[in-house]
């Protein structure tokens, strides 16, 4: 009998949820000018056009819209660049010696058949992968260890605050003195760039873990390590993910500085070399390659984190 009552309450709840969803749809239909569109769709295509499909299709449209606006915006920027170089714009900012988009494009195309060019890119990517991986492991570990304890935070944060503002370029002399090989000093500089945002975001995420969730876990029988794996780490994950993205961006940023040391390869070296050879189009090619690879790798990090953050989109 009690079971039956429970069942009934459960059903009632389900009905009210349905009702409110339908009600929401109805009222939206009444008030918004889109109602005619919704109705015509349901009339002509009466098969299975549900509310969910409607949301999904409009979401797709939204994504399409975002992408197309981005493309238009980028094209507009290139157009300005083109016009500025075409008319030798020189008012405070001087474009007279800046290579035009077409010369840069031509230089880029000429490199595409060049094996050396790919080697530059591949070696840079290898350095990023190596340096970034170490930064992730170390940064998340330190952040998590330090985040839960106020005393540990107080001990570690001063180091971070002092070292963090030092630009990657400033590290070059010391890196060369400290590390046995050229390669290791480049990786070190790249690693440093990624490390701090990862540590700081991890600390922040861990610190912001809702106390009620820790209490809930403890009252369910969780010991320290279980609280850590099941509560603290997942709670910090959105913040850690943000740190990973920022860290990826900064590691590309630092890579260029590191590769100034390198006498041979790397896209940073390529750019620096173009500068010393006064090859202006190649400077811009190098810059854009760094920008493009940085964007791509940050996007990949986001993609990799997405499954672990699936729950996040339901949070209100």
């Amino acid at each position, binding site marked *: 009998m009690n*079971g039956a*009552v429970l069942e009934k309450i*459960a059903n009632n709840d389900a009905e009210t949820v349905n009702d409110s969803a339908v009600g929401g749809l109805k009222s939206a239909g009444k008030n918004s000018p889109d109602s005619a569109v919704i109705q015509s769709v349901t009339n002509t295509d009466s098969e299975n056009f549900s509310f969910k499909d409607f949301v999904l299709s409009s979401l797709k449209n939204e994504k399409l819209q975002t992408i197309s606006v981005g493309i238009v915006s980028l094209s507009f920027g290139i157009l300005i660049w083109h016009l500025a170089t075409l008319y030798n714009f020189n008012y405070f900012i001087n474009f007279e010696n800046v290579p035009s988009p077409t010369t840069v494009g031509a230089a880029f195309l000429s490199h595409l058949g060049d094996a050396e060019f790919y080697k530059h890119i591949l070696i840079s990517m290898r350095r990023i992968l190596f340096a970034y991986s170490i930064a992730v492991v170390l940064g998340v570990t330190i952040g998590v260890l330090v985040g839960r304890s106020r005393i540990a935070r107080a001990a570690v944060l001063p180091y971070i605050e002092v070292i963090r503002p030092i630009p990657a370029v400033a590290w070059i002399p010391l890196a060369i003195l400290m590390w046995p090989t050229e390669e290791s000093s480049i990786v070190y500089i790249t690693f440093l760039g990624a490390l701090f945002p990862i540590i700081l975001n991890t600390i922040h995420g861990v610190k912001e873990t809702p106390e*009620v969730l820790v*209490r809930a*876990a403890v*009252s*369910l029988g969780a010991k320290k390590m279980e609280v850590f794996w099941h509560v603290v780490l*997942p709670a910090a994950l959105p913040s850690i993910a943000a740190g990973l993205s920022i860290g990826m961006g900064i590691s590309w940023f630092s890579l260029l500085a590191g590769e100034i040391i390198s006498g041979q390869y790397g896209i940073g070296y390529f750019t620096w070399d173009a500068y010393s050879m006064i090859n202006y189009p190649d400077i811009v090619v190098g810059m854009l390659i760094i920008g493009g690879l940085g964007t791509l790798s940050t996007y990949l990090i986001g993609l990799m984190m997405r499954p672990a953050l699936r729950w996040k989109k*339901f949070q209100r």
Partner: protein
Amino acid sequence: MKTGVVSMHEKIFRKETSDAKERGKIEIDEVSIVFGSGPTENIAVQETSINISPGEFVCILGPSGCGKSTLLNSVAGYVKPSSGRVLVDNEVITEPGPDRGMVFQQYSLFPWKTVHQNIAFGPKLAGYTPSQCDSIASTFLAMIGLSKIAKSFPGELSGGMQQRVGIARALANYPRVLLMDEPFGALDAQTRLMMQESLLNIWSEFGITVLFVTHDVDEAIFLADRILIMSSSPGSVIADLNVALERPRSPEMATSTEFVALKKECLSHIRAQSLKAFEEVGH
């Protein structure tokens, strides 16, 4: 009268052979809880003693800030009494543990775990095999009538559904007592009524001791066998009222003469307290 769901659950889960009737005795023995010291000293609870029998449904009623949550937290083990002690089934409480199920006012489901994983978490920590955990979680989901949303994340659920899952999660550990800290405080009035009925059904099915903190007089009368009214600064129990309304309770009882008389009594106690507090601030 136990339904199949619960007896099945007991079979898989019951660790002790002791009779369920002997489980869930709470003794709060001369407990004082003091925060801070010197000029900022705050006596949240002062020399309070309460005895709760196994299977009893007790509400602690009082204005906000009267120390009722602090008292509950001392049973949960989050707060250590400054003096005195808390015993559950003759064991002194020193830390939180799975033998005392806790339901919070704020939504406290793990947002990254599905509903099913939330309920299975306790049994998992208790060392049950994955298939046992699954079956326990499914059993409890069926009990609260939410089997359909097993794979949903908490963020997808209404507040009422989340609290129902919270109750199921606490019960899935087969605790001695269920401690509830204003669990329905954040819900709208309609949902709250349904949750209260639902809770009474679960309680009668399990026969578990419930200690329920609230500031809502109607809620306390509707749910409880006994109402303890707390005064503020310093927090202590000023009245221990027996609720003689028959069970099962129904919302219609709210207009019965017994209910109204009890409500008047509660309100006069609380009013006297509020007046005292008001005058203290005035001076």
